[in-house]
């Protein structure tokens, strides 16, 4: 505690001193007051535990001092008070972010401290676990809160470290050369057996002209030998890739892009418990072509990928959704008189802020909810996948309508566990949706938007050990601006999963050690309606009602119904 106080005072002192000489000190802030009222119905006999309420008020104050272009120092301090925490009894004070950034020699941009990093889909990437591109604005409002609380911005991972980048422009020969390097620590040693573990990476991005670009990428994780006296493991992983694209854009009507990424990984691990030196090498390639018909804003594309079963890229394969064993529902964690753990549903994925999402890089492939991610649980970098991906997207010039669809037809490269017939799973993943701005058709000034989305997944295998699992997730949304800045929101999510699958358990070497059979016969329906009022720049109030129905025919005691009344005031400056 004393250390924290000292740290706070030190930072304030630095900022104060900086302010004296600064040309610019400014503040940013995010505030939120959130209240929920929940009800659950299950097979319980003790009805007193079927209602609950919760919420909090928080304020994140960002203090930024910008002396010159050379340095900007920023800290975000958080004060949070739990709903019902009278006289600050439930209040907490914490650092949310500490960062410095600036320019070295007017050329090299640097960031130090808490930084957000993304690289390529095969090197460093934070993949979305649940398809939500076309969900209702009502759900996305809540998902934005969850993402903010868990430090998710787009596909970046939040890390602690340093990020440097610069770009050199040339007059002749090549257009520009981008150079980037980053690094930091993913794991702190425990003084005895777990060594410090560092990540690092870089990119050289050569743009030859508007026709051609090529980049070389490197991303690695290594244990630092000697940081503990009795290291249980010595881990190293390195991913090398190159991505490139050729663009042909000389016509008024057509544009073509040929591009892709190819690369390889090298993994090695020494363990104190044995004398074996474990080493795995593998590679991937993902190549495709895309064509656009400009008058219609219509793009069609296709690609082929092959990701080896030993391709290891922890920073691209770590899952955003935590492993099931680490997840606990915030509301009603137990049901049926405390005898059953309530299963995580689609509702939690956009509403639960804590104990659901993962913010750390995992060097082993994390276990996952098969029913929600059977095809690409580890994003594009999912190992042991090969096959075709096709995309189509269109947007009318006046933005009345836009739609997108992506179809993946994949299979395993190597059979998992079938030693008799060697059958490989075949996967299908089709996802897409649309947004239709009806007000533009009606020439109505205020927004009337309808959106819909669909994702279907299937995993099938014949042979000795048959697998047949399929799921669908349907999204429907409505947003009507009835008065200026007052929106009526509606939304629905319908999820179904049926069949059987087998999930692999992996060891420290990422090798499969066991399979666990799973059966599903489950449906979930969420119907929600609400209002949103924007009462100033960055300020809003919203209230929703969510009706959740979770049916599990395979395990009847998992079935429940839940509803939630939700209020939120938000502000941002």
């Amino acid at each position, binding site marked *: 505690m004393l250390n924290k106080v000292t740290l706070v005072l030190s930072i304030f002192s630095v900022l104060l001193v900086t302010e004296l000489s600064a040309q610019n000190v400014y503040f940013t802030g995010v505030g939120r007051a959130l209240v929920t009222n929940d009800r659950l119905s299950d097979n319980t006999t003790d009805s007193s535990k079927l209602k609950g309420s919760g919420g909090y008020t928080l304020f994140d104050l960002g203090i930024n001092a910008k002396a010159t272009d050379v340095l900007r120092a920023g800290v975000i301090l958080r004060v949070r008070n739990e709903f019902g925490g009278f006289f600050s009894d439930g209040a907490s004070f914490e650092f949310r972010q500490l960062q410095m950034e600036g320019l070295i020699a007017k050329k090299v941009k640097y960031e130090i401290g808490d930084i957000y990093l993304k690289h390529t889909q095969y090197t460093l990437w934070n993949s979305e676990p649940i398809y939500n591109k076309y969900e209702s604005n009502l759900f996305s409002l809540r998902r934005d809160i969850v993402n903010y609380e868990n430090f998710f911005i787009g596909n970046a991972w939040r890390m602690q470290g340093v990020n440097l980048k610069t770009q050199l422009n040339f007059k002749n020969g090549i257009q520009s050369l981008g150079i980037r390097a980053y690094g930091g620590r993913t794991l702190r040693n425990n003084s005895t057996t777990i060594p410090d573990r560092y990540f690092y990476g870089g990119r050289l991005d*050569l743009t030859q002209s508007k026709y051609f670009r090529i980049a070389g990428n490197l991303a690695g994780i290594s244990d630092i030998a000697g940081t503990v006296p009795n290291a249980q493991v010595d881990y190293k992983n390195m991913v090398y890739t190159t991505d490139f694209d050729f663009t042909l854009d000389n016509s008024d009507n057509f544009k073509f892009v040929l591009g892709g990424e190819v690369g390889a990984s090298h993994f090695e691990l020494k363990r104190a418990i044995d004398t074996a030196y474990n080493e795995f090498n593998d590679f991937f390639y993902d190549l495709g072509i895309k064509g656009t018909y400009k008058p219609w804003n219509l793009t069609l594309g296709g690609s082929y990928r092959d990701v080896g079963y030993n391709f290891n890229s922890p920073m691209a394969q770590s899952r955003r959704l935590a492993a099931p064993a680490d997840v606990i529902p915030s509301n009603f964690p137990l049901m049926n008189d405390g005898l059953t753990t309530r299963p995580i549903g689609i509702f939690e994925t956009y509403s639960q802020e804590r104990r659901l999402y993962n913010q750390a890089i995992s060097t082993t492939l994390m276990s996952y909810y098969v029913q929600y991610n059977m095809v690409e649980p580890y994003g594009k970098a999912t190992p042991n996948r090969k096959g075709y991906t096709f995309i189509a997207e269109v947007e009318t010039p006046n933005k009345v309508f836009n739609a997108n669809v992506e179809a993946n037809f994949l299979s395993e490269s190597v059979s998992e566990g079938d030693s008799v017939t*060697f059958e490989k799973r075949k996967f299908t993943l089709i996802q897409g949706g649309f947004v239709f701005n009806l007000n533009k058709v009606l020439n109505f000034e205020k927004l009337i938007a309808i959106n819909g989305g669909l994702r279907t997944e299937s995993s099938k295998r014949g042979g000795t050990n048959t697998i047949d699992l399929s799921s669908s997730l349907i999204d429907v949304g409505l947003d009507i601006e009835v008065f200026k800045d007052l929106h009526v929101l509606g939304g629905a999510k319908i999820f179904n999963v049926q069949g059987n699958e087998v999930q*692999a358990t992996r060891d420290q070497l990422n090798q499969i050690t066991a399979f666990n059979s799973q059966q599903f016969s489950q449906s979930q329906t969420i119907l929600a309606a609400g209002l949103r009022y924007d009462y100033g720049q960055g300020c809003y109030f919203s209230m929703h009602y969510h009706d959740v129905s979770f049916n599990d025919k395979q395990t009847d005691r998992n079935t429940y119904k839940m509803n939630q009344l939700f209020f939120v005031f938000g502000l941002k400056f």
Partner: protein
Amino acid sequence: MKLLFRFSIAITFLIIVTVFSCTRKSTEYVGPAYISAPEGFAVMNFSSSSTTADFNPAAAITFDATFTSSVSWTLTLTGQTSGAVRIFKGISNGFTGLQWWGDHDGVYFFRKDENVTATLSFFGTTMTGQTATPIMITEAPVYTLTCGKFSRYGDFEDATKIIGANNWFPFSNPTTPIANVDQGVASAAIDYTGHPVPSVEGLQYYYIKGLGAQPTFVSGMQYTRTSSFTGLPADASQVWVNIYLYGTGDPNAGVELEYQESDFDGAPGYQGTDDDAFVARITLNHKGWKLFSFKYSDLTPSLNADFGGSGNKMHEPDRLRSWDIVVVKKTSPNSPIEVYFDYPIITVGGPFKPCH
């Protein structure tokens, strides 16, 4: 410009060709093989050779089973008192004469006078099978002669044997006993978090708990021999030191295991001022019992000149004479800590594993 463009294309082409020319090690399948139980699958018979088991001296009981088709099966033997588990797995339409020597897979040992249930389960079905009656262990296996070098009475089953006459010496510095320390043999201790400490092997274990009289050091115990441990090779990379330690997740609780040699320096036995001590330092931030195993060559030399830091700094397990367990506070001098330990054993060729 054209030259660079062509060069870029050539580089890209080279990379693509290189990657496409890569080949993976040919394999038909990955992961353990398995076969799901088909519809109509049934167990035709399942039995053990005996309903009692005497594992001392080493002996096995056997299991037989027959199924209607070839399938991935798991036979799980579970000790009803100890919670010990032994798992056998296979793919077949049954098994004959499957031997069990009383050994275990997890951390807990099977015990004398406990019942063991034998349960068959199969991949892809919830159907299970059990033997008609459980198996009663009349004598538990003894690993002290077959699996490694054991500190005499180091199973702590007889508290009266943990005395100086049998080479066990509780620490006594600066006073006897050390102030604010409780140590001895127990079987049903309650840890500081209020949880009962189960036995990992047999019924008893040794414990040291308290604040101690110094900021870091709490207490400890030494096992010393009048001669070196017999039969240990000179090659330190072939020798492993093992001990079971119970933790409560307290990062303040630490243990230092010191392995002391009698260097060839003229003076007999281990002398802290002129011989080597090699150390493993452990923070007990785990919960429950855990087996800690260290390769002797990975142990670090003592840095204390008066306590093992003055030898030849060579790992010489064939000169191992005694060992200490030292209990220390890691982070908070004013918070008492606790350590429970059992079954210290020195093995050759790998960490301790039940054998016969």
